[in-house]
């Protein structure tokens, strides 16, 4: 199972677009990480308030539920850029050259079709909860404190649109590698051997203990 992979860079338009989009993706992923941190703070606040000050935080569950899409979905394109979505590479790992790029290309084209469909579906889900004529534009609200739900529903199609852009770049990258018969194409995550990958993971942990 591939966890993370290397992405090469050069001065081509593709690579520059890749790095440009990466800035946006990193920003989104950071929002997700900060939201996890806030989740922790919120829980400590809620417990502390309840245990020590007899003033529990109103709507605690509503706030957490509203935060979860930010945590769980905003970083989806960043993870795809890094090759971080797991897969079984026991077969694909055996392929080399054009056969490998063809297989990768097929896979990202299918994922793009899926994500375009889901972007639409998630937008429709948002749209049902959004009403320009209603107070706070809300046609769906949370159970305890009546928070409008549309902002957290909107996160999903936005994040899905960004990963769709990412997939377009990857189609370009793999397509180019397939046509030109490249060995180390830029802007796409390269399959690493299990050992290379473990090494990279270990490096990440360096200096952390």
């Amino acid at each position, binding site marked *: 199972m591939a966890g993370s992979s290397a992405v090469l860079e050069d001065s081509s338009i593709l690579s520059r677009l890749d790095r440009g989009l990466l800035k946006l993706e990193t920003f989104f992923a950071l929002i997700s990480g900060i939201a*996890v941190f806030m989740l922790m703070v919120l829980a400590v606040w809620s417990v502390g308030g309840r245990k020590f000050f007899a003033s529990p935080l109103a709507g605690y569950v509503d706030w957490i539920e509203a935060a979860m*899409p930010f945590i769980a*979905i905003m970083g989806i394109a*960043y993870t795809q850029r890094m090759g971080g979505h797991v897969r*079984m590479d026991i077969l694909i790992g055996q392929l080399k050259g054009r056969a490998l790029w063809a297989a990768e290309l097929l896979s990202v084209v299918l994922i793009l079709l899926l994500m375009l469909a889901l972007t639409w579906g998630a937008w429709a889900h948002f749209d049902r909860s959004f009403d320009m004529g209603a107070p706070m534009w809300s046609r769906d609200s949370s159970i305890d404190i009546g928070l409008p739900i549309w902002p957290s529903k909107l996160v999903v199609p936005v994040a899905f649109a960004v990963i769709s852009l990412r997939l377009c770049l990857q189609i370009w990258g793999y397509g180019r590698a397939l046509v030109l018969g490249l060995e180390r194409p830029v802007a796409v995550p390269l399959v690493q051997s*299990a050992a290379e990958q473990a090494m990279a993971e270990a490096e990440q942990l360096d200096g952390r203990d």
Partner: protein
Amino acid sequence: MDPIEIGLWVSGGMLLMVVLGMRVAFAAAMAGLIGLIWIFWAKKGMEWDQLGWALTVAIKTAGQVPHSKVSSQTLSLIPTFILIGFLAYYAGLTKAIFEAAKRWFAWVPGGLAVSTVFATAGFAAVSGASVATAAVFARIAIPEMLKIGYNKQFAAGVVAAGGTLASLIPPSAILVIYAIIVEQDVGKLLLAGFIPGAFSAVVYAILIIGIAMIWKNVGPPVTGFTWRERFASLPAALPIVAVVVIIIFFVYNPFGDAWGTPTEGGAVGAFIVFCMAVFRGMRLAELKDALLETAKLTVMIFTIIWGVLIYVRFLGFADLPGAFAEWISSLETSPMLILICILLAYAVLGMFMDAIGMLLLTLPVVYPAVMALNGGEFVSAADSAFGMSGPMCAIWFGILVVKMAEFCLITPPIGLNCFVVAGVRPDLSVQDVFRGVMPFFVADAVTIGLLVAFPQIVLWLPSLAG
């Protein structure tokens, strides 16, 4: 075509996509979406002018799932548990716990290896991820073992196996995922993980001591630590104890009312480790890295979760789990034999798949079947096949499959923990690690056998919690 037939075709197609190397989350979501289109279209008699309607309804139904399913308070445990693990590195907890384990346990035969197992078990109490645990201890423990003349392969095997304890002993992302999929009480599942996790560690330790007594050169004991040195090693490892105590007290307080939900317990644990890391001088850039890594891992897990849940939504319309459960419970074979076959199937599947993907893909169908086998979700212990009530069976089976999933982390050809250990140590090949970890297959088989034969090991703690 009837829905169950559609269900089987789509499930087969999904497994094919996964084997061919499509990212698991998207393969599952794709299968679910295609299945939904198919089932809605079949409902309208597969008329061509109805295909557009079926597409729209299926896409809108699937499009609800990501937001709907991730907006859950219980699932918020996962990012918190992941964050604890990353913060623990900065808090210096790994070194501290290994040092303490060494001073307390290294005097027995195979002493350093035993200490490593107990240190990984201790670290498991703050880490939710097995692979990370193996990577960390490959750096800390292997060099020390080699220094005093341990067999290289054996030392690597100890670390790879010890790493697997992290998912059984809470906090554990994988136990939370199991609880979500099967809709059972997260708190009780986490509690249930403690004893089997500690039990696995003890079985590992006994195995190591046995090996060390038979083959003298495997690992000499390390002696000479004074009691003063032993106690001096404890304070640095204290946050781990604090996290364990907090999680237990949040879920089940033996002295009165518990303190809160498991979610809150996880968050307070993370906060303590965070304070510890800040105290140890963690910088803002490091915090940013930890948050990005947490986000990446969290998103990876959640994408699989909602992807699989789109597939599960389709299964709901196809009613495949119901049909499978009916079929399993109609078999004449003894329930225990069927259960053992299911566990063996997991062992085989796990040779090729990672733990979370494997559980998410199979549980929606397998879990209802196991529950039906025991006599249903609300069966009493007296009327059941395995001698336990429905909810208890859910907990017991959960611990069994998680232990199976952990076992798969050290079995060839895809044993992630072994890859990681070999990756960290350039002087070790993957084959070396697989060879060294082989004795632990026996230990795991024994552990699983005992957990099957004596469910009380799993169920005692959660049954105290009411």
